């Protein structure tokens, strides 16, 4: 059965380019196009596509807001963010809003196909270009300790070191030590990368990240 897809992008040229990719693929079915956040949300409610490709920046409300609505309504539509911005914070914001894919608009059709298929099956797809470290396939991360996992998850939810310390009843200094150790084990240079890598290696799952959020 073909994957039913909705495409929302306010830029007509980019939208038609991507639409053409999608249409060419036999296993995909483009059910609707939208040019802003409100139209996308209306069409998602109406058509219930399997996958929604959303531009992050759109007039009215943006892609992240649409993803949040989809998540809040508990719909089955999987969201792939499609963007020209490579900021990792956009990835984090998208993931927190329930998106399962994050793809730059410069991707090849092959990569886009992979992304759509991955998220349609419930997986997570992040564009390798977003976090360059994501490309190092042969890296095997060290196992995180239970405490380190807790620290990483809380930090990933946007809590500051101070708040993490308060919640886990440890000192702020200890939180910093844990974070340094986490970076080291995952081969990341900062919190965001650590989280993305942890997701990639399956150290933490997207579900855990979205818990009581």
């Amino acid at each position: 059965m073909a994957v039913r897809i909705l495409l929302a992008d306010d830029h007509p040229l980019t939208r038609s380019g991507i639409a053409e990719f999608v249409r060419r693929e036999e296993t995909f079915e483009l059910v609707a196009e939208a040019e802003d956040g409100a139209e996308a949300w209306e069409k998602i409610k109406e058509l219930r596509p399997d996958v929604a490709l959303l531009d992050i920046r759109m007039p009215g409300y943006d892609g992240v807001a649409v993803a949040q609505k989809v998540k809040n309504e508990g719909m089955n539509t999987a969201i792939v963010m499609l963007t020209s911005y490579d900021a990792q914070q956009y990835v984090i914001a998208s993931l927190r809003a329930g998106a399962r894919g994050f793809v730059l608009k410069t991707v090849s059709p092959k990569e886009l196909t992979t992304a759509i298929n991955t998220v349609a099956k419930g997986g997570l797809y992040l564009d390798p270009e977003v976090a360059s470290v994501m490309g190092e396939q042969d890296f095997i991360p060290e196992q995180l300790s239970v405490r380190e996992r807790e620290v990483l998850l809380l930090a990933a939810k946007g809590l500051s070191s101070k708040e993490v310390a308060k919640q886990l009843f440890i000192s702020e200094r200890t939180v910093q030590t844990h974070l340094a150790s986490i970076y080291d084990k995952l081969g990341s240079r900062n919190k965001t990368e650590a989280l993305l890598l942890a997701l990639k290696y399956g150290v933490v799952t997207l579900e855990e990240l979205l818990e009581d959020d």
Partner: protein
Amino acid sequence: MLSQLRKKFAGSGSHFLAFLLCALIIPSAAVVFVAVAGMLSQERAMEAAVSSYVQDLAESMSYHLSSDSDVWTFSMLSDFTRFPFFSWGPSIPGWVALIGQDGKVIIASPGSMHIITSIWRNDLPIGRAVRVEDKQAAQYTLAVYPVKRPSGGYVVAAVSWTQLLGGLVGVVRIWPLLIVAIALLSFFSIRLLWSRVVTPLRSLSSDIDSMTLGKDVPENLPEGTIQEIESVHNALRRYAQAAVERDNLRNRYVRDVVQAQEQERMDMAREIHDGALQDVTALLQQIHMIADDENKTTRLKRSEIIAKTVVRELRAFCDELAPPWMDLGVNEAITELAERLSQAYDIIIMTDYDEDTDTAEIENDKILSLLRIIQEAVSNAVRHGHASEVDIQLTRENDTLTLEVSDNGKGFESGHINHETLRVEGHRGLASMTERMSLMGGTLKISSKPEEGTKITASFNIGA
């Protein structure tokens, strides 16, 4: 009437001065006038008194001598000695002498010979008092009266002014001195008032009139101006100088801004020219070659790589110009920037936020200001301070958001830092950050000590 006058004088400063001058000139002129008149009339009165006294003396003497003719014939000497006057000196002031037809002194009261000869003049009129001076300029009045008796002769009477009038004569001598002194004093005080008050005040007011604030500093006041005006003038001078400095500062700031703008445009032009433009040209060349090339796939692959490079370059360029991820909120924006900077400079950057900073609605331009401050601070920490670790903290207290960027670099002596010293020392970035914060109604503080790193604290009100 009085209120009208008051109104008139209150209206303008120069009228008041004229009033002040009149108040000084009129009374002193009046004093001089009254003094002169008083002196003259006193002189006249004194002269009249002395004259009538001397005339009376001479006349009464001549009358006695004329009527008592039988005594006179009997014995001249005994006759005269009947008058106590001649034998043991006058009991009233003055001297009397009887002179014969032949000009010889027949008899004289004691001491009178010496006095009368010292003041005697040949042209003396008869029957009228005359005022004369001796060689010491002492005043005398003299009267000569004829004696009507066969032997004839004259009675000469004289009196000294000091003898008759005593201290009054001295007063008359002092009068002119007093008058001259008062006149001179008034003259000098008016002159002083003119040169030290009126002229400086006029020059001060014309200075103020003609001064363009921010351009001129008032001229120096004339020498010897009174202290009060001098201090007003100095205050004005300081004020004008401050205005000039402020103006210069502003001009310099505008020039800097314009320069910075132009520099930025040149940088952008160069970046586009050397980057994207070159790449797109290469892309075009590849596309041209596709048409007549059998190895189309390789050419296409190459074109794709070039196009991707262009996109990446333009994206980085846009991020540099105005980070789009500001939309995500202040914490995310700072985290993103911190992570990028940490990779770019290869240093550790820690970020920490208060729980409630992210919930605050902060305008994008304020977030952008915070990002620029962080950029500038981290760049300075690495370039000047050789720091290896930077700590970024964002805290919120009520409506005040505070950003703290501290590093472990070399630090410097920050005791006397302000916009101007920053600018002069070439820290344009920090100087414009400071100005940017003050435009937002916030503050930016730089504290640093050698070997203790640098801390930059920016805070502003998010409600404002």
